[in-house]
């Protein structure tokens, strides 16, 4: 490879890394600054402090919001992992009347913007008394057409032989699914896990609609309302933003290898 081309590659790589990481680094620094220094561009290492984190956690319900986000994201993610794989498996491997029709529905629903059903779903949830509850934040989101599509594509790509052997041994479809298929699906499940968990952890429109009291807020909703009141205190606002961001970055770092592998095996393209 020519030297110039190589230099060009590295420049692009490094410049763009600076563009993506720069804002985070600056936010982290700001979140550690005392209020008197937030408008200055210099960093006084001696004065850096975790006081802002302490402050937002002790004076505001950030921990509660964190907990809410965690509960909701975990419930929704595991619901999706289970139900989407089940449906995806049925669409890929089980023969039943109406299968094609259901697959078309899955494809069609991927195009429905969630906002279209926002109003009636809200009405339905309020009739059920689920507004401002964990039920309202989780139950409507336990399956996803996108996730089903993803899993179907994956199941189509893995070899059939083991399942066929198991069928001859008389195993039921459900046991085949649990004992043979799921263990093979780690990369696809990881990909879905990351999509669903980050998507849900970061989701803002629905939780801001469905929660009205601050003890039910999720972290993004809480951060937005905190920002609305304390926008002058950028160091505290940034501390909140970092609190919201860090867990996702950690999860991604842990699973990133599997994640990229999963994307290439799910035929997500």
């Amino acid at each position, binding site marked *: 490879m020519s030297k110039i081309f190589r230099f060009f590659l590295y420049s692009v790589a490094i410049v763009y890394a600076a563009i993506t990481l720069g804002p985070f680094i600056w936010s982290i620094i700001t979140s550690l600054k005392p209020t008197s220094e937030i408008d200055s561009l210099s960093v006084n290492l001696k004065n850096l402090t975790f006081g802002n984190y302490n402050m937002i956690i002790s004076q505001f319900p950030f921990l509660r919001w964190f907990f809410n986000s965690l509960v909701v994201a975990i419930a929704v993610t595991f619901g999706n992992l289970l139900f989407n794989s089940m449906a995806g498996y049925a669409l890929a491997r089980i023969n039943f009347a109406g299968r094609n*029709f259901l697959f078309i529905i899955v494809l069609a629903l991927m195009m429905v913007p969630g906002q279209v059903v926002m109003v009636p779903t809200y009405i339905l*949830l*309020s*009739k059920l*008394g689920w*507004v*401002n509850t964990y039920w309202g934040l989780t139950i409507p989101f336990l399956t996803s057409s996108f996730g089903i599509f993803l899993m179907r594509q994956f199941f189509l790509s893995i070899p059939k032989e083991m399942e066929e052997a198991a069928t001859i041994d008389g195993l039921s479809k459900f046991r085949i699914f649990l004992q043979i298929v799921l263990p093979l699906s780690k990369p696809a499940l990881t990909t879905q896990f990351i999509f669903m968990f980050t998507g849900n952890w970061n989701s803002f429109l629905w939780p801001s609609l469905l929660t009205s009291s*601050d003890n039910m807020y999720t972290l993004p909703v809480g951060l*937005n*309302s905190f920002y609305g009141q304390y926008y002058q205190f950028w160091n505290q606002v940034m501390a909140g933003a970092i609190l919201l961001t860090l867990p996702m970055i950690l999860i991604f770092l842990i699973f990133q290898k599997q994640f990229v592998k999963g994307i290439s095996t799910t035929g997500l393209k």
Partner: protein
Amino acid sequence: MGKKFLSIFVVTILLIAALLSGCSTKQNTASSNNNNKTNSVQKQDASKPVTLKLGMWSSSPAETKIVNDQLAAFKKKYPNINVQIETIVGDYMQKLQTEIAANVAPDVFYLDSMPAPQLMSSGVLEPLDDYIKKYNVDVNDFEPSLLSAFQWEGKTYGLPKDYNTLALFYNKDMFNAAGISEPPKTWEELKADAQKLTKNGVKGLVLSSDLARFEAFMLQNGGSIYKDGKVTLNLPENAQVLDFYTGLITKDKVADTPQNLGGGWNGDVFAAKKAAMAIEGGWMIPFLKDKAPNLNYGIAELPEGKQKATLAFTVAYVMNKNSKHKDEAFKLLEFLTGKEGQQFVVDSGLALPSRKSMEEGFRAKYPDRVAFIDGAAYSYPWQFGLLGTKVSDAANKASDSLIMKQAKNAQEALDNAQKQLGQ
């Protein structure tokens, strides 16, 4: 087979849809039954402790303190009624309305005069007339213009808890440095003083692009916004004012918006000493005390045009129609707006008591804040019938478009706003 499945599927969905709509009527009757039941139960043993929810927003810790103090006094008087505060953060009306729709709204809550007509007309509030009669509340003691903001088609839905008028906040140190001895009394003086005060990156005046500020000047100029059920946004008197008001920013360059001066609202800029004057209400006082404790400032009546005028902002306590403890809720409402409750408002000095009989107490205690009370005599309520915030949104856009130089002149901008409102 495929077809059969399709039809089954469609039928299932229709069934579910029918169920959904069926659910709603069923639940409604169930809840009204419940209401009847609780009402009769309530009469039998009124001494049983009940818990009420009180919905409010909090503009400052000082405001929260007033309510907490009021509730402590209330608890002493009515030991059997517990009150839980629910502070709504963020967009108050949006959250409140969704709570009402979902039937989880508080028993008693704050309601601003502006959106009051929509709620009063949609029947989600409990009319208070029967309770006022039953408990013999002296409603004539309330400032009539405040009370009338919460009356709709002959019924009273809310009792005003306090109010505020707009006045001119001015930085005394900056005035002294510029050799100005008195706050401006007329528009000309306002402009001339602002000119003198504009230097070294400081603007003479911070002006928000907000009908809730410039309407006062329009009223002073003989204009109006909403008259006899009609929007009158594009009157020439209004256009004149808007040209003057936005011209202070765009032509004379003696004023600017809080956003352009690095703040979220006028208070930020005034506290940061980036502007020498600001037009605000009593809510500025605790904010300044907190943010700029050493700021040397005064409060004067608004400078006048053809006549004196200012805006009065009022908030009332109203009762949720679906409250399960209406009698108790009214006792709370009456206490908070009665003389005992109002005394806390007077003591805090943040807002003016809504009862005429309490006014003297305020004057005596806060002589430097009488500009607010003097303004009350010539104030107009902040309310535009059912159109509500649609009017102010349209007017704000008109002034935004002038400040951001997207419109030629105020008349054109206001004509456009008027048209947008379909008037």
